[in-house]
């Protein structure tokens, strides 16, 4: 039973990583940049939801929607102010800017909300489900998290495969110049990608803090880095890859914690990443298509 319980916890944590990883991978796919501030958008989302429920007494669902709205705007503003002017700059300049934005967000959060941890109250205030006479306990948070993850995956896949804008975004991510020659506004596509990624980050923030309720200005950075790892692990730029990478990473982390060592779990997670990249440099689902000359 411990095994099953660990597996469920792993899938649940992994689903959070997967939702965050989607933001990394979509932005990388379309803008070819690593948005290291993505993790901090998660933190902002969690704080917004926290304030909405605690100070404004709004219902949890409304607080999530509000967090998504704020993060969407934040994501688009970050892209427009910090990254767009660097579209033709070297990728190193963009990377450093992203790290700068990350610290900027953390410090603004510190100014607004202070350094004292806030206790996040779960957005699903329901009792856990006990199965097999109490031997297996499943929290409602983990069910909600996994369901949210599956729903997001389905919606995103439909969006990119079926809608005109989604297909246009795939075209931009594959070949910007050719997409532009089709009449696709590349800048709008990139903004929309940031908007979607940031809205997902808000959801991830709320789910993460519902399971692990300590909220501080650096709450987003470690899950952000892990989700980035998950995106690389699954094959950066690939939406199903982010999903697979995230869930595998969550399972590996929880299993290492319970069977090997809590202190070493992160080291094990990154060791697995290194091994995967040595064996398959493009990640699990990363693909390389040969170009015909």
């Amino acid at each position: 039973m411990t095994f099953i319980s660990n597996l469920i916890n792993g899938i649940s944590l992994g689903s959070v990583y997967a939702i965050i990883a989607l933001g990394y991978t979509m932005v990388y796919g379309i803008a070819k940049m690593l948005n290291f501030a993505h993790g901090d958008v998660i933190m902002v989302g969690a704080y917004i939801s926290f304030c909405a429920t605690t100070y404004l007494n709004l219902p949890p669902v409304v607080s999530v929607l509000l967090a998504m709205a704020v993060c969407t705007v934040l994501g688009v503003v970050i892209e427009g102010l910090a990254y767009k002017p660097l579209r033709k700059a070297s990728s190193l300049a963009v990377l450093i800017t992203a790290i700068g934005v990350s610290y900027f967000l953390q410090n603004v959060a510190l100014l607004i909300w202070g350094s004292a941890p806030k206790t996040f109250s779960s957005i699903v205030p329901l009792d856990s489900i006990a199965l097999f006479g109490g031997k297996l306990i499943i929290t409602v948070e983990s069910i909600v998290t996994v369901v949210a993850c599956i729903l997001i995956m389905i919606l995103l896949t439909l969006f990119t495969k079926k809608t005109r804008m989604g297909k246009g975004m795939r075209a931009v991510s594959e070949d910007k110049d050719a997409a532009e020659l089709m009449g696709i506004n590349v800048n709008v596509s990139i903004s929309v990608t940031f908007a979607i990624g940031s809205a997902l980050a808000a959801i991830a923030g709320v789910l993460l803090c519902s399971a692990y309720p300590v909220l501080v200005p650096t709450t987003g950075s470690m899950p952000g880095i892990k989700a980035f790892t998950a995106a690389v692990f699954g094959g950066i730029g690939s939406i199903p890859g982010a999903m697979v990478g995230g869930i595998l990473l969550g399972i590996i982390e929880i299993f290492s914690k319970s069977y090997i060592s809590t202190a070493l779990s992160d080291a094990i997670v990154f060791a697995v990443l290194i091994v995967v990249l040595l064996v398959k440099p493009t990640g699990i689902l990363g693909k390389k298509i040969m170009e015909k000359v």
Partner: protein
Amino acid sequence: MLKVDNINVYYGQIHALKDVSLEVKKGEIVALIGANGAGKSTTLRTISGLLRSKTGSITLFDENVSHVEAYKLVAKGLAHVPEGRHVFLQMTVLENLEMGAYTNSANVKAGIEDVFERFPRLKHRKDQIAGTLSGGEQQMLAMGRALMSKPKLMMLDEPSMGLAPILVQQIFDIIKELHEAGTTILLVEQNAEMALHVADRAYVLESGRIKLSGSGAELAKSDEIKKAYLGG
């Protein structure tokens, strides 16, 4: 229809186009020929707005488009089939064609029918990922995709590059057909013989400068051209 007046384009320090001027009139096929690196693709990329000129102006359909973003020119009636085809390799043939009609979504169904009629091979491969097509099929897809926007002016960059002679002939036949159907064409080619044969007029680009211009037949007879581009 298109008037390029005195443009100068730089890649960093490199002066790629020097005082280039050219004109394409409605209903013409105009060829732009020249050696590798002469600036042919740069000229097309500047016309379609992917690159910017430091000087001069580009007038397209009686409107100065020197500072108009590339994506806006498609809806005005310009299609550019880039060098190396640049089809979306990870998208299906159908999706590639849909992208061609991005600014003209009312025309998707009818447009796809037209393209399949012109390029029957694409129809058989409509659900295949473009990356699995042969080079010739990819060229047809790139041309079909450009036709989806119902362009008034079509710019083709090295459509024969890397293709077997029989396919080259086929591509040129299609260019003639498109022209007869009323599309104005600006054609960039290294295959000068074929290009001069179909073209009403042609420009010769050398090291970023227009060296010669004249009717296709005139240039095909010129000794200078024969020596430099036609192998004799």
